[in-house]
């Protein structure tokens, strides 16, 4: 075959493909409301649903901050306040961070490894459609007698099993059910991701050619697989205690209240890594693009994700230094917890190495990633302090901890999430967002986050406890600052929402690769066609080859026999000659 023939064939393939897309049913907005099995549709479904609940959780947060702007409990009842922080935590974790990251992974992982879809598309859709069920169960708590669950998102017994209403169906009951369904959804997702990543990689896409985002999703989903079952076991027992009257966690009747804490934290601490690891992946994708340099120390960064996943199974007791845990446990878990900082530090330094001497461009995505990195370093440092038993004994359950984990979950995770949305927005929608509004969004978020969560550290050091509806007047000043920051954060989502909606409808058309980024997702159209690739690519080099001018994939020097046959059949109708010698 001669070169011209290749060209002809390729053009024809593309045209055929285009025709197919035009005919494809449901290529409009309606498909987002169907049981679609396309991983990209499911990804968007996850992201939009999750963002809606981010706003719901945010409104709860603002009610909390409004209550705390004065020392007295004067805005809402204490019961309602307790319901607010319980639901704020539950919604932000189980309906914002988890689903949004699963959504992003759903969208990106198959394309990034060169697959047509996830390994189990129907399971994928089913996992997504469980999320609305979780949402309904969670929100239903507000409409049952006695109100929603009020025991905090930890739901420690015996408080969580006290059930003041005496009804079988109560807020706590619905809460446990919601967690249970969320767990089923997450396990379905995890099985799907692990199978997809291990078995659906394009030819030549070896493990060490996978983008770091894929590595981090893999690590995170492995944590789901070994961690979630422990929470499920604990919540089954909690449910039995609450409804049928078993005494697993009731100390008055021979039960062990602390055992629940072990079950809970065995999952819920690693759950933090489930959330943060993909964000590390996002940082690792974004810094090279906007610095025009390869990721510094790719192999080490990849492996450190897996190490974090492994170590995460051995740190849970650091949440229980002040509980009834034995001394030896406090010390063993102090060391294991601090060890997490080593692989994490490696990543931070690798990002620094990537940025150093790069050709930096401060697009919105890069700004969010940089802001997220700075706040993550801060959170990491307070994290080390919290790992030290003597300091934790002082600040455990105080606003110091609240400040610390909001720097992680807002400062890093949510900022990273925004970075990802801006970075891949052109790919997902085929449109460019408005850069100016993006930057305004960044600055409002960055200021709001620091104003909201930095004063909390001081409050905690002075002994203000979390989950209080009223507090001593001496804590007022920092609380007012934090509340103002909270409202600013609430406002900061508005430019984002308008930017995204208007750009999606009427943004400038984006090319396949507006950032000149290297990666399989940037080789396909924006938005990508239904099965992502005209033909599965052959990957021939490591990711992040900036400045190396080597191709990522083999540039179609070959052609499948079957394809040729297909094309011959198809093209004979169109009277295109194929000179197949």
């Amino acid at each position, binding site marked *: 075959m*001669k*070169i011209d023939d290749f060209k002809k064939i390729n053009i024809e393939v593309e045209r055929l493909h285009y025709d197919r897309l035009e005919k494809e049913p449901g290529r409009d907005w309606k498909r987002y409301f169907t049981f679609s099995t396309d991983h990209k549709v499911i990804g968007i479904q996850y992201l939009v649903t999750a963002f809606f609940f981010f706003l719901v959780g945010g409104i709860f947060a603002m009610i909390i901050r409004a209550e705390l702007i004065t020392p007295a409990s004067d805005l809402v009842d204490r019961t309602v306040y307790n319901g607010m922080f319980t639901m704020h935590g539950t919604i932000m974790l189980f309906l914002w961070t988890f689903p949004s990251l699963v959504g992003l992974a759903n969208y990106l992982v198959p394309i990034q490894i060169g*697959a047509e879809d996830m*390994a*189990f598309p129907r399971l994928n859709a089913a996992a997504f459609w469980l999320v609305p069920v979780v949402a309904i169960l969670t929100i239903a708590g507000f409409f049952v007698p006695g109100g929603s669950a009020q025991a905090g998102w930890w739901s420690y017994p015996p408080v969580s099993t006290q059930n003041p209403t005496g009804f079988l169906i109560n807020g706590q009951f619905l809460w446990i059910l919601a967690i249970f369904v969320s767990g089923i959804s997450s*396990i379905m997702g*995890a*099985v*799907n991701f*692990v*199978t997809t990543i*291990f*078995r*659906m*990689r*394009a*030819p*030549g896409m070896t493990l060490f050619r996978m983008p770091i985002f894929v590595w981090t999703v893999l690590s995170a989903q492995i944590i789901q*697989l*070994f*961690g*979630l*079952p*422990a929470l*499920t*076991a*604990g919540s*089954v*027992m909690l449910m*039995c205690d609450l409804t*049928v*009257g*078993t*005494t*697993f966690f009731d100390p008055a*009747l*021979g*039960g*062990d209240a602390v*055992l629940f804490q072990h*079950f809970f934290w*065995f999952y819920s601490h690693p759950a933090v890594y489930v959330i943060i690891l993909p964000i590390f992946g996002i940082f690792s994708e974004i810094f090279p693009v906007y610095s025009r340099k390869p990721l510094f120390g790719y192999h080490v960064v990849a492996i450190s994700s897996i190490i974090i996943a492994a170590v995460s199974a051995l740190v849970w007791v650091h949440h229980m230094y002040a509980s009834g845990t034995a001394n030896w446990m406090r010390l063993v878990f102090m060391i294991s917890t601090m060890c997490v900082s080593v692989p994490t530090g490696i990543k931070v330094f690798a990002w620094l190495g990537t940025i150093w001497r790069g050709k930096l461009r401060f697009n919105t995505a890069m700004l969010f990633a940089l802001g997220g990195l700075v706040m993550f370093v801060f959170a990491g440092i307070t994290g080390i302090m919290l790992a030290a038993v003597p300091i934790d004994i002082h600040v455990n359950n105080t606003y110091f901890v609240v400040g610390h984990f909001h720097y992680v979950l807002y400062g890093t995770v949510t900022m990273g999430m925004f970075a990802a949305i801006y970075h891949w927005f052109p790919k997902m929608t085929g449109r460019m967002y408005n850069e100016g509004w993006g930057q305004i969004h960044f600055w409002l978020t960055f200021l709001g986050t620091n104003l909201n969560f930095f004063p909390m550290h001081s409050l905690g050091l002075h002994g203000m406890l979390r989950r209080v509806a009223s507090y001593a007047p001496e804590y007022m000043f920092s609380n007012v600052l934090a509340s103002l920051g909270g409202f600013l954060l609430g406002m900061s989502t508005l430019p984002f929402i308008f930017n995204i909606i208007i750009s999606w409808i009427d943004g400038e058309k984006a090319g396949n690769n507006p950032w000149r980024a290297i990666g399989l997702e940037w080789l396909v159209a924006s938005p990508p066609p239904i099965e992502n690739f005209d033909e*599965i690519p*052959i990957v021939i080099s490591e990711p992040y080859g900036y400045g190396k001018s080597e191709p990522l994939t*083999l*540039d179609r*020097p*070959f052609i*499948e026999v079957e394809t040729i046959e297909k094309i011959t059949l198809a093209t004979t109708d169109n009277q295109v000659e194929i000179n197949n010698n």
Partner: protein
Amino acid sequence: MNNDSIAQQPEFLPDINTFYQNSLHKIHDHEGHSMFGFIVFLLSESIIFLSFFAGYIVYKTNTVDWLPPGVSGLEVKEPLINTVILISSSFVIYLAERELHRNNLPGFRFYLIATMAMGSYFLYGQAIEWNSLEFGFTSGVFGGTFYLLTGFHGLHVFTGVLLQGIMLSRSFIPGNYDTGHFGINATSLFWHFVDVIWIILFVLIYVWQ
């Protein structure tokens, strides 16, 4: 691309094409994906049991009044018979699988029905045992963990029998095995898993008293 690079390709083309075809084969091996995914799922599922076992050990070693008043311990004899039957059924389902691979459908159905019968007998035996016990689910952590563990395991046995029933009925659909044996392989694996869990459970609850 210029003509020079094209000119080099004939040597290179067959190899890369073979590699590509083999890779596509692997990527489209849906039955293999399903089995892989199922194994991953079972590994995860086993952690639920491990958590329950860990909880049981904690309770057993820390609780002061372990047995509820009036209970002297658990009868081992009948559960042991039950255990033997359940474990034997693992071999029987293996035979069923073997018959299927030999394309002997009647033999496959015979052994599958035998497995179902043994599984059902196990459930029946457990129901008899539950009925005869003088303590209930809410009789302290002993009663709680006992019924939780045996009940949760029983649920898995029931699921296993149900899956076997589905496999049995599907064996009458013509052309059911054209796309491979994933269904029966997974059912069989699940059955072995349920057996292994039972052995640990039996040791923890009945042997270690």
